[in-house]
């Protein structure tokens, strides 16, 4: 089994953080993982993406020619990556700001209003964790506790206070019916 995911969106939306926490959590669950970020001339408001591969055997290539899952947080990313998703794969999109829908008919589409949900929680910053709630639920690869444990580890002692709002954000995404 190998599952590859591309996370993409604006810089500042926590796109790399989503992939990083996911990879970390999967590693702690005993999976082989690779995390490959885009890097370089990225700026806040520019584009960012990362590829995470999770597998129960050694991962040959960390690059995804045909990702199983695609998580897009903005419209340009949807257009850039939608055609690469493997047939039968999943596209998770931030429906709060993406008004377009994928033209693909052979993939499952999960529209998650992460911006609105995060706003309702009183902290628009946690929109990426809302998305991860929906992502972990639908993909079913990791138990939600594993993700939250990874998140807690990465936030660390210094940002302990941030854990509460993140936990709420994760639950909001996880419990969402789409």
């Amino acid at each position, binding site marked *: 089994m190998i599952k590859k995911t591309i996370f993409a969106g604006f810089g500042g939306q926590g796109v790399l953080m989503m992939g990083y926490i996911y990879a970390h959590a999967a590693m702690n669950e005993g999976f082989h993982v690779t995390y490959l*970020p885009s890097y370089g001339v990225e700026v806040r408001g520019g584009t960012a993406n990362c590829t995470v591969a999770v597998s129960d055997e050694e991962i*040959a*290539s*960390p*690059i995804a*020619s*045909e990702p199983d899952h695609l998580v897009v947080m903005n419209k340009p990313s949807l257009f850039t990556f939608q055609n690469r998703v493997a047939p039968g794969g999943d596209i998770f999109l931030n429906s709060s700001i993406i008004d377009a829908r994928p033209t693909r008919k052979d993939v499952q589409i999960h529209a998650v209003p992460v911006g609105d949900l995060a706003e309702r929680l009183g902290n628009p910053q946690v929109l990426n964790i809302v998305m991860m709630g929906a992502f972990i639920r639908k993909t079913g690869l990791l138990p939600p506790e594993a993700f939250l444990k990874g998140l807690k580890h990465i936030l660390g002692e210094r940002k302990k206070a941030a854990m509460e709002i993140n936990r709420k954000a994760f639950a909001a995404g996880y419990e969402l019916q789409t």
Partner: protein
Amino acid sequence: MQGNRVIGEAAIRAGCRFYAGYPITPQNELTEYMADNMRRAKGGIFIQAESEIAAINMVLGASAAGARAMTSSSSPGISLKQEGISSLAADELPAVIVNIMRGGPGLGNILPSQGDYFQATRGGGHGDYRTIVLAPASVQELADLTMDAFELADRYRNPVIILADGMMGQMMEPVEFHAPPPRRYPECYVLKGMGQGKSKFIRALILDAIRMEEHNWKLYRKYQVIAQKEVRCETFWTDDAEILIVAYGTAARIAKGAIKRSRELGLPVGLIRPITLWPFPTQVLQGFAARVDDFLVFEMNTGQMLEDVQLALGNTARIQFYGRPGGVIPTPAELAKVIAYQLRKK
């Protein structure tokens, strides 16, 4: 852990106590890691030099004084370091130089590339010398080969290049650090300061032609020993292969992905992955050529290792090439198509 940081951590654990560097993408996290962590190593020194050239020459000085020393940069910066690397080789001083390659020539871009193969494996600077070149293909191997690099540098008193690229530097994978063996090296050359034993010279300016020639032959004999003893190579799915891909580093990772895809379609393809680019695994390739007729060299450049494969195999096999230069990361699917095409053509 991220590849760049892993190199830093492995170096410190291997006893690296002097690091000088100058920032350049995509290896910045390594310099940053050393700035943060060198101080927790007893006697560790970190210097952000004023230039790449200063950094390599500081490494030369530290090495002459007996420290395990390292510097790192990316392609354009490594070009600047060549004078120092040539001097290190001439002076027979150990040092580890990390090149996290990016697209070139010139300033190029900051994306992963393998365009510096010629520079790394042919010495790079002026004069008749060689450097050992290690090409890791995973974050775990970045850790292991960094530790080995210090060992090899000490054993042969020669600069060792770690040749990776932006993808290796930026990628994160799980990693375990093994305990490195204690440092053993011939201390005879180390300059310890006035009043510390007999006076010694380390110099590469030898004006007398006959003595210079003798120094060259001495270095040559050392390189012969390295070429005999230090070749490293991995093979993957070669047992029944009818076509063999030759690739290193990131390209080898992509090739493994492509091979898995091709094998699912029943295509008999395998991989030879040189881990040491110099010394090159010539004999391993020749061994396979007795059985396999087709080789496909795959690189993220326009064909540099290709020449070493051609030198190794001559007319004994058909050699094809596929490459993407300039910072493009080819996908496994793309290479799988090339494999299928080559096998159809047979």
